[in-house]
């Protein structure tokens, strides 16, 4: 092995005529947290399901922990832990029984099972819930139990499919802490998400995926830097016309129209460009109501590369204020 725990080459997957995964290639290095960031229906779960051997590989090549996903599914299965997108605990069993069952289906010896359960309950702060039925746990605790279960067999790679979807920000940040701790212990983590902050703050590297394709891969800073140092947000009395004017300027790399504002990507120093832009727009008789300069966020990266906002889903983090807050720290 070359230090790559996951290697994927030209992976494709179709449901009937729908190409859900379209010629995807990427690698995940030993010990890193790697994220697939993409909207609903992007193909994230499909990729996870192929890598975890739950779906048959149709086309392309994939290796997990050195084992061929298509030819050696049993070894792949022994190397990985999974936290599914949908909650799947046995609600009629207690916290420790859920873990116990997992250890048993993976043929872990009794003593090892016991030790590992103790360790994991400590790690996920579920010690006091050891004998609680899974159905009596809070949503966040259930997810933590699934996390513990995924780690039961000390997998080389842990797959998490949207591990924090639907949780409030506190619960989500707590989950990130656990994942960082798991990473420190040497486990490679592959996760999918449609939360910008999750990809941004948690991951070592991110692939933005849309319509079954990887649009771009890199670490958070690299991705943001490709957008230049600063972004300009403008609100004007006539966004449409203003956008056209801006596009004709040499110093402007791209303009995207949001619902209320224009997002302007520039190639040069903002201190020179901004006065020029404002003058030009005013000159056409358009009023500028708001000007905002900010560092590119993951959100901006996403819009830049996919040409649309990551709006789908139940994201509560959408209000603009919060977005800016997320980046300012």
């Amino acid at each position, binding site marked *: 092995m070359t230090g790559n725990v996951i290697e994927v080459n030209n992976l494709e997957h179709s449901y009937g005529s729908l190409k859900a995964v379209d010629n995807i290639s990427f690698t995940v290095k030993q010990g890193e947290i790697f994220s697939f960031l993409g909207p609903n229906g992007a193909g994230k779960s499909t990729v996870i*399901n192929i890598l*975890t*051997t*739950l*779906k048959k590989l149709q086309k392309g090549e994939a290796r997990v922990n050195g084992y061929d996903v298509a030819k050696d599914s*049993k070894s792949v*299965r*022994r190397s990985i832990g*999974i936290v*599914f997108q*949908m909650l*799947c*605990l*046995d609600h*009629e*069993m207690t916290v420790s*029984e859920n873990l116990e*069952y*997992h250890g*048993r*289906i*993976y*043929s872990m010896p009794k003593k090892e099972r016991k030790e590992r359960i103790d360790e994991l309950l400590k790690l996920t702060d579920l010690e006091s819930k050891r004998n609680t039925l899974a159905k009596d746990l809070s949503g966040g605790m259930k997810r933590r139990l699934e996390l513990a*279960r995924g780690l039961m067999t000390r997998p080389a790679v842990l797959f998490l499919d949207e591990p924090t979807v639907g949780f409030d920000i506190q619960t989500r940040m707590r989950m990130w802490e656990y994942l960082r701790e798991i990473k420190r212990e040497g486990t490679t983590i592959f996760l999918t998400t449609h939360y910008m902050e999750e990809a941004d703050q948690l991951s070592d590297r991110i692939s933005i995926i849309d319509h079954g394709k990887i649009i771009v891969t890199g670490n958070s800073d690299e991705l943001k830097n490709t957008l230049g140092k600063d972004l300009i947000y403008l609100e004007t009395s006539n966004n449409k016309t203003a956008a056209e004017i801006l596009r004709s300027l040499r110093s402007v790399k791209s303009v995207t129209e949001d619902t209320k504002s224009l997002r302007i990507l520039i190639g040069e120093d903002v201190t020179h460009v901004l006065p020029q832009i404002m003058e030009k727009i005013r000159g056409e008789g358009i009023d500028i109501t708001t000007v905002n300069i900010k560092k590119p966020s993951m959100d901006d990266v996403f819009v830049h590369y996919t040409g649309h906002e990551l709006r789908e889903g139940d994201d509560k983090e959408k209000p603009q204020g919060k977005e800016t807050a997320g980046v300012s720290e």
Partner: protein
Amino acid sequence: MNFEFRAIYWREMLKFFRFKSVLFSSLIQPVMWLAFFGLAMSDSFDKLTSLVPNEAGVPVVDYLSYMGAGIIAMDVLFSSLFGGTTLMFDKKFSLLRETLASPVPRFHIILGIGLSGVTKAFIQTFIIIGFGKLIGMDFFEGFTLAQTITAILGIMLLVAVFTLGFLFLSGSIAITIENPEGMQSILTLLSMPLFFISNALYPIESFPDILKLLSMFNPLTLLADGIRYFALGTNFSVMGNHYVYTTADIAFSFMGLIFFALTMLSAAMWRFNKVDI
């Protein structure tokens, strides 16, 4: 050799003893059958048939004992036929995902569930035999200790094969079907002919030939006959019908049930290998 089926078995049994209501009803159900149906029917049947002359020199068995074998068969039939239902819910609430994503071979999942069903069936069988003896069922009458043990082992073996067959059947349906109502109606539909075209509860000597023929191949008949062979002996008369069980008869019962179970096993394997997540 892998023993992963033990994990599946462990979970099934854990939950069997956890749900007190299910546990209680599955233990009390056979007793109710015997107590209400058995006693009521046997009294009236015995009255009705007391005038029918019995052949000289043939031991007479009362209806309760005849029916006791059938009640074991019936009770085991119903619990195993409906036993797969949990699988449907496991699939519906994606509980199966974890197991299906693990290295456990599908065969082990089926086997684990099957063996847990067999355990439950044994418990019910013992309850019926125990309670039956208490209310005057003539099982193992005049048997030596060794004969009794052999007979019980024989019955257990038959019950096990029978239960596996029906659990595999029910499991295949459960894993294929999406909604509980559909499952319920298919099972009810299945249980009707099984129930009526068999000699579990009454002799079939006076059935029309076609039904008699069908009944011969009904697993329920095979099991009831098998239990009678072990529990009542090879030569007895009940309600004027003279029963003689030969070694060929019991072999036929065994072979028939084994054939049934293997067929259902392959059906279950086929359905399980199709399950997609």
